[in-house]
């Protein structure tokens, strides 16, 4: 395999992000955290602005801001503010604030689009290393805590009675989400990271009878969308990140239709 080829790097980056995002995305779907994922990934743009303004690597800036956002959301959930409205405010507020922040940085205004929808064809060797390191960390976290996370998802009190600390598991999810956002911003951009979490998991749902099978199927859907999306975007000369997400959405439509036809 030739890492000098930008296409190979793009395919590998897409594959890495999709593989890590899919099992984590299952928890996002099961715990109804779609908006939570949205808010965290939208905050990534603010991280980009922060990184560029302070000469930090983009990965570090995005990781820090996404983590701060996810921790803030976790701390705020369970308060009396309507959770749905609160997350909506945070998701759109973070995006708007990020857009305002980058407008102060002339060098970013030029390629704002690449931070919003990703620029997978421009992934460097160093980027690829970060993407795979991040993806491996997320996958390791989710696999290591899998059963405890699942028990916490079903009932925090039941998990507690079995010796699992639900707060700790929530923190594991929060951390994994922040790392995913940092790894994925180059690949699909701040606007579409949440799509990569949710759509493969949702597409896999009708195909599975156990949580483990659903996660594996979601990885399959994600990998297919990533590789197919890179190829299709070259063929059709379309933006790659949105093409990947469109393909995943197509698989979702397909599995839903098959399920509906089966009754």
């Amino acid at each position, binding site marked *: 395999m030739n890492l000098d080829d930008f296409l190979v790097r793009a395919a590998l980056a897409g594959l890495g992000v999709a593989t890590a995002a899919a099992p984590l995305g299952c928890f996002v779907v*099961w715990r109804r955290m779609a908006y939570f994922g949205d808010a965290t990934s939208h905050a990534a743009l603010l991280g980009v602005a922060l990184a560029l303004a302070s000469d930090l690597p983009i990965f570090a800036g995005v990781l820090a801001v996404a983590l701060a956002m996810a921790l803030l959301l976790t701390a705020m959930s369970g308060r009396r503010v309507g959770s749905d409205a609160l997350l909506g405010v945070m998701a759109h507020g973070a995006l708007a604030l990020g857009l305002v922040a980058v407008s102060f940085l002339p060098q970013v205004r030029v390629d704002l689009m690449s931070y919003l929808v990703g620029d997978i064809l421009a992934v460097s060797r160093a980027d690829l290393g970060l993407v795979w390191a991040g993806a491996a960390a997320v996958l390791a976290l989710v696999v290591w805590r899998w059963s405890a996370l699942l028990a916490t998802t*079903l*009932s925090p*009190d*039941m998990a*507690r*009675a079995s010796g699992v600390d639900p707060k700790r598991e929530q923190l594991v999810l929060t951390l994994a989400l922040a790392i995913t956002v940092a790894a994925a911003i180059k690949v699909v951009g701040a606007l579409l990271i949440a799509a990569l979490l949710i759509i493969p998991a949702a597409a896999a749902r009708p195909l599975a009878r156990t*949580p483990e099978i659903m996660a594996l199927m979601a990885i399959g859907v994600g990998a297919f969308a990533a590789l197919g999306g890179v190829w299709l975007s070259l063929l059709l000369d379309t933006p790659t990140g949105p093409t990947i997400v469109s393909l995943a959405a197509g698989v979702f439509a397909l599995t839903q239709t098959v399920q509906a036809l089966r009754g």
Partner: protein
Amino acid sequence: MSALITVKDLALAYHGREVLRDVSLQLAPGEIVTIVGPNGSGKSSLLRALIGALPPVKGTIHRKPGLRVGYVPQKLVIDATLPLTVARFLGLPRRITRARVRAALTEAGVGEIADHQMASLSGGQMQRVMLARALLAKPDLLILDEATQGLDQPGAASFYRQIEAVRQRQGCAVLMVSHDLHVVMAASDRVLCFNGHICCEGTPDIVASAPEYRALFGTGTQGALALYRHEHSHSHGPECNHDTADGSLH
């Protein structure tokens, strides 16, 4: 024999609001204790404190060292997007062998549903599956939060008989909470009535032969249900008159 759990002068708060105060109680090995009380009386908060999910505002909870607790939550909200078989559920958070799955389900009276989806179970089956999962820990103490909610009277009676059988076989103590103020599990050794504190305490009236009992329960419950007669020495004021709501029982 030493107590499984000793609670002293406990006060609990939920979202900054006091829900329970001045609670002292002990649970002895093998006894069945039922807690009744209206909604918001602090019963579920006490259970959550006993499993360590809610820290006390005041007072202490002492658990016997090495105490094993089995917990059956009030209800399980399983999102439609989460595929889960009964067998996989029983293996959370620690995986178990197929043989143990089968044995646990048989013990709980639902031997044949290991491969069913959790979402497809009836209310009664769901309660038994949660009971089976709780029993896998070989608990010294089984804690059930409103376990018969959503079951009809014969369903509740049948579940209570199941619990009694489990207690006899395994010898575990049982602590259960019910929102039904007057109808309790007949096998309860003690009944505690909560309303922000312990209102009264007593034993259930076993009146299975009385005509009133048959009028209330019919004949399908086989003595698993009993009445609890509240003996309150104090008044809670007009907004809190649960003990006079049903005059015929007092």
